[in-house]
Each structure stands twice: as C-alpha cells, then as structure tokens.
C-alpha cells in the first residue's frame, strides 16, 4: 500500500537515508516515488534544501525523466514497448487495441484508477516480441487478448 499524504518528516527521513551517496538525487527521487507512487510537489523544496539545490534544479530533474510521475498511477501499471523490434511483430496494432479496450491514451490512467499504460522504448526481451511489463512482471509473445487478460487478472 502506498502512503497517501506526503508528510514532511517522512520525506526528510527518505532524503537523509540517501544523503551519504555520491550524487544522491536520483536515488532519492526513486525512493520518494516508491513511497508515494509519484513525486509529491511538496517534497521538492525539502529535497532542494537538503541537497543545497534550487527548487528549479530539482524540478528540472524530476521533469526530465520519463519515469517520475506528478500524480499517482493506476493499480496496474503497464509498460508497453513501442520500439522497433516490437513494431516488427505487430506492436503498434497491439498497443492500439489495448489502449482502446481500456479507453485511455498513452500515459493515462483509466477512470476507475485500475490501469495506467506507459509507453517504453525497449524492455530487452525483443526476441520474444511484442513485450510488456505489467507491474514489473515480464510478458512476451503478446497479443491483445493475452495482455488484456494479464492486466485484468490483478485489477
């Protein structure tokens, strides 16, 4: 269960737990997202102060990387590959069918909060394309029916 309300004390704890690292910002942001499911806006000034950075610098890093979210994702996060090897095996049609099924566009979350579908560019099992990760679990040789079933299994 993800913590829902960013609380200042907890954010400071997370920052402090990583402060000894060389170049701690990305590990801190990953830890915040693991805790809250996204990077809470209120956490940014706390991180900035602790690392002696400006808020703009921290926000600039958060917004640069595709992984960091500004709001929570659905209960099931599908990372669906859009890259060439999956395209060669019908990846575009698969993506279209699955997005249509859940009634969402890329990076959107379904209205009931069940599913988010993010585009990714290669998951590294291109030899069993088309490929996806569903909440981190790898799935290959996919068709729309199998992927939808795998997503709905856990919702």
């Amino acid at each position, binding site marked *: 269960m993800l913590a829902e309300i960013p609380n200042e004390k907890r954010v400071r704890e997370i920052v402090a737990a990583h402060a000894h690292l060389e170049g701690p910002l990305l590990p801190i942001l990953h830890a915040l997202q693991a805790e809250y499911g996204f990077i809470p806006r209120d956490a940014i000034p706390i991180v900035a102060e602790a690392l002696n950075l400006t808020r703009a610098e921290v926000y600039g890093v958060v917004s640069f990387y595709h992984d960091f979210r500004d709001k929570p994702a659905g209960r099931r996060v599908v990372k669906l590959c859009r890259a060439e090897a999956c395209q060669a095996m019908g990846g575009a049609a698969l993506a279209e069918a699955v997005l249509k099924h859940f009634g969402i566009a890329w990076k959107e979350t379904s209205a009931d909060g069940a599913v988010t579908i993010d585009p990714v560019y290669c998951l590294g*099992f*291109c030899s069993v394309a088309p490929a996806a*990760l569903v909440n981190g679990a790898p799935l290959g040789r996919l068709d729309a029916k199998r992927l939808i079933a795998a997503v709905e299994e856990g919702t």
Partner: protein
Amino acid sequence: MTRIFIPNDSAALAVGAEAVARAVLLEAAQRSLVIDIVRTGSRGLHWLEPLIEVETPEGRVGYGPLVPGDIDATLLQGGAHAKCIGVVDDHPWLKRQTRVTFARCGIVDPLSLKDYGGMRGLSRARELGPAASIAAVTASGLRGRGGAGFPTGIKWKTAADASADRKYIVCNADEGDSGTFADRMIMEGDPFALIEGMAIAGFAVGARKGFVYSRSEYPHANVTFAKALSVARAAQLIDKDFDIELRIGAGAYVCGEETALLESLEGRRGQVRAKPPLPAHEGLFGKPTIINNVLSLATVPWILAHGAEAYAAIGFGKSRGTMPVQLAGNVKHAGLFEAPFGMTLGQLVDDIGGGTASGRPVRAVQCGGPLGAYFPRALFDTVYDYEAFAARDGLIGHGGIVVFDDTVDMAAQARFAMEFCAIESCGKCTPCRIGSTRGVEVIDRILKGEKREMNLALIEDLCRTLKLGSLCALGGFTPYPVMSALRHFPEDFAGRG
C-alpha cells in the same frame, strides 16, 4: 538426484518459465522424483524458451519451448519427448558459436561463485600489474561494445595516465537500443563476469569505486545484479579497495550516451556534455573515469585469463574477437548468437536467424538500434565488422539486428526514427531538439504528396544538419534510419494523397 536447469532470464520468464518451473516441482512431487532445480540465465536460444535442461550421463538434454502441460515424468528423467532438442551443447545453433563473453551464460547458477570458477582474470591482472594489464587489453584489440567501437585499452591508458585523488569505473548498462538484450543477459546470467571486469579495470587504472548504471526497464536484471553484488561483497571480492554500486536510471534513452549518463549519476538532467574534456580526463564528479559497456567489461576477465593473443586471434580486419549478435523482431530463430566478426549480414539473418517468424520474405533489417541504418536484401553481403558497416552508412552498434518482413512500411519507420529522437532528445542541441519534430512534419508532408521534391530535398538537408550539428549520437545518428529508408525503399515514400 537429477539436476534440472530452468532459466530465470527475463525473456524466458516473459514466455512462462515460472509456470513451467512450478509444473516441474509438482510433477516431481507427484512421482516422488528427487530433483534439484538450478535457476540459470538463458542460453540465448530464445525461440525455444521456456527451454529447460535435464542433466543426464550424455550431457544436459534440452526441452522447449515448453508449456506446463508438457511436463511429464519421462522428461524429468531426461527421456524422450516431442519437445526434446537433444543434448543442448550439441545443438547446431550453439555449435556454430564461439562463446567468449557468454561462455557461462545459461549454464551456471548466476549467483554461485563456485559455478563461476574463480576470478582467474583478476588474479592474472594482479600478477601482471596495472600497466601490463592495460597493455593486454590493448593488444587484444577489444573495442567498446556499447556501439562506438573505441579501443578499450586506449581508454584505460588515458585514465591510468591521468593523475587525480580519485578515479571511477562506470559501467554503462543503460541498454536502450531496441533489439538488444546482451547486457541484460549478462546481468541476469553471469553477473560475476561484469563484477570481475570492473575490478580489473579498477586495479588497472587505480580506481576504488565503480558504478553500474542500469535501467528502470530492467527490474529483473537489477534484482539479480544487486544479489550478485551482495554475494561478491560477502566473499570480499569487492571491498573497501574497490566497491561497486548499482544505480538505476529513470527512463531516459539519452542517458545511454556516456556524458549524459555521468550527468545523471551526478544527479542532474541527463544532458550531454561537450567533449573535450574526455571522461577519461574529467568524467564523473570531474575525476578521471572509465566508462565501458557491460559487454566490454565482461569480456576483460576472459582476455586476461586466456591472454590477449587468444582474443586477437579471432575476428575480422580491425574488429577483433567476438560479437554477441542479438537477433530480434520478426525472426524465426530469435536470440543471442556470439560469433567472431566476419560473417555476412545475410548469413546472420537468413542462415542463423532462419528468416522471418511470420514466414514472409525479409524486406529490411535495422542494425545497431534505433539510430542504426535499415539494410535492404541488396546489402546482405555486408560483412559484420565495424568498418564494413560504416562504409555502407550503417553501424553495428551494440550488436542488435531487428528483422522486418515485407509488410513493413518504411516511411512509418523513418517517421518513427524522427519521433523517437523528438521524445528522447535531451534538448541541448537545437538540430536534435527541434529538427526531430520538424522531421516528423516533413515526412508527413512527403506522404501527403505536398511539394514532394522540395520536401525530399528538405529532409535530406535536415538530416545533414542533425548529423553535423549535434553533440551526440542521438541527433547525429537519427539520420541513419531516416536516410537509409529513403535511399533503399523510395517506393514507400510515394504520396498517399
């Protein structure tokens, strides 16, 4: 007790290896068979995954591709079965390979130091001393396997000669190219090879800290590699004299570019740095830094243990040693094929790859990831070698070959290359940041038949600007897929009204 080997590699898991493992346990329990399951990496015969192996007096007998319903008592004892492929070591697809970097992958328990068999390369490096170790890497002819093909030994020598209070070894495991998975397979199947390679690099240049920069898209590899680091630390193979830390990126393709990777490690936006200074002079936190790909580092222990001459003895032209070629996309025999440089592209695609998975004719292959050129059949005589590919306006890159059948729309592929560049551009260089978006628009206009000749000239000019006006390979190489599609498949760019 029968030992049964089941891959724990992402590609195998993606097609049901875990369910097969459960079926094996269940069947063994029901038949009161005493078995010992060893989880391995993958052999690289991915079209046969899930592929499990049963130890017999004749060798390890393989079965695949399996579904849970295939598991029976005969199979668990290495007997006859419709999905039996015989002794795996004798399989022609493996017999034709020269496994150097992947000698252990798929065979050993990746987290067993006993299976790994000792750090012979590191011991040898310590006997030789730093300078002679670097000389051995140089003499082997090893070139950067990340894609650029820069001689590894020269990079090491530069960092070794730089004087500083701290130096770093950075392993680039940000394997973002579509159609590539060799780094992931090493991290999941033979992580100690990478750890040993980094320890050798640290010893050779006088660095005490190493970072592995991996991807968030590789959750499974990251878990295995982190476990391997714990095992190595517990065995004091890495310690205060040389420690390794695993870092995870956050979904930015450009962080596979070495200077963007350094920025990211330092905690900034993954924006490319201008060179010089070279990272070997001023790299991570401004200190001399070696940045090498996973495959380069994982090959170093073999070179030290077997001698530079043994590695240099295989290969083609200036491309020495082996390349783990990754066959992906619409290909019948998809997987990892490690062979000395020098085969032709046609041999790799038609003979080794067996043509397409769909059974339709091969129309195009993209070599070297999303920034690599599309090759038509007419260029299938190109020799797999850095220089031969460059001579045909292509690159072998990190060794990926993505196969497309005759249903491919090459204009869509060219458009995607520009779109991908726009999505992943770090924003530093204007031609890449803005030119990529304009490139998508120009291709759209060509396809609509708008001022066709003018727009064809414009896309060519834009590609030239990207190529010459970008600091790194993202903007600089995006023209390869675009221009190769235009040059070799002009019929796909006819106006569609």
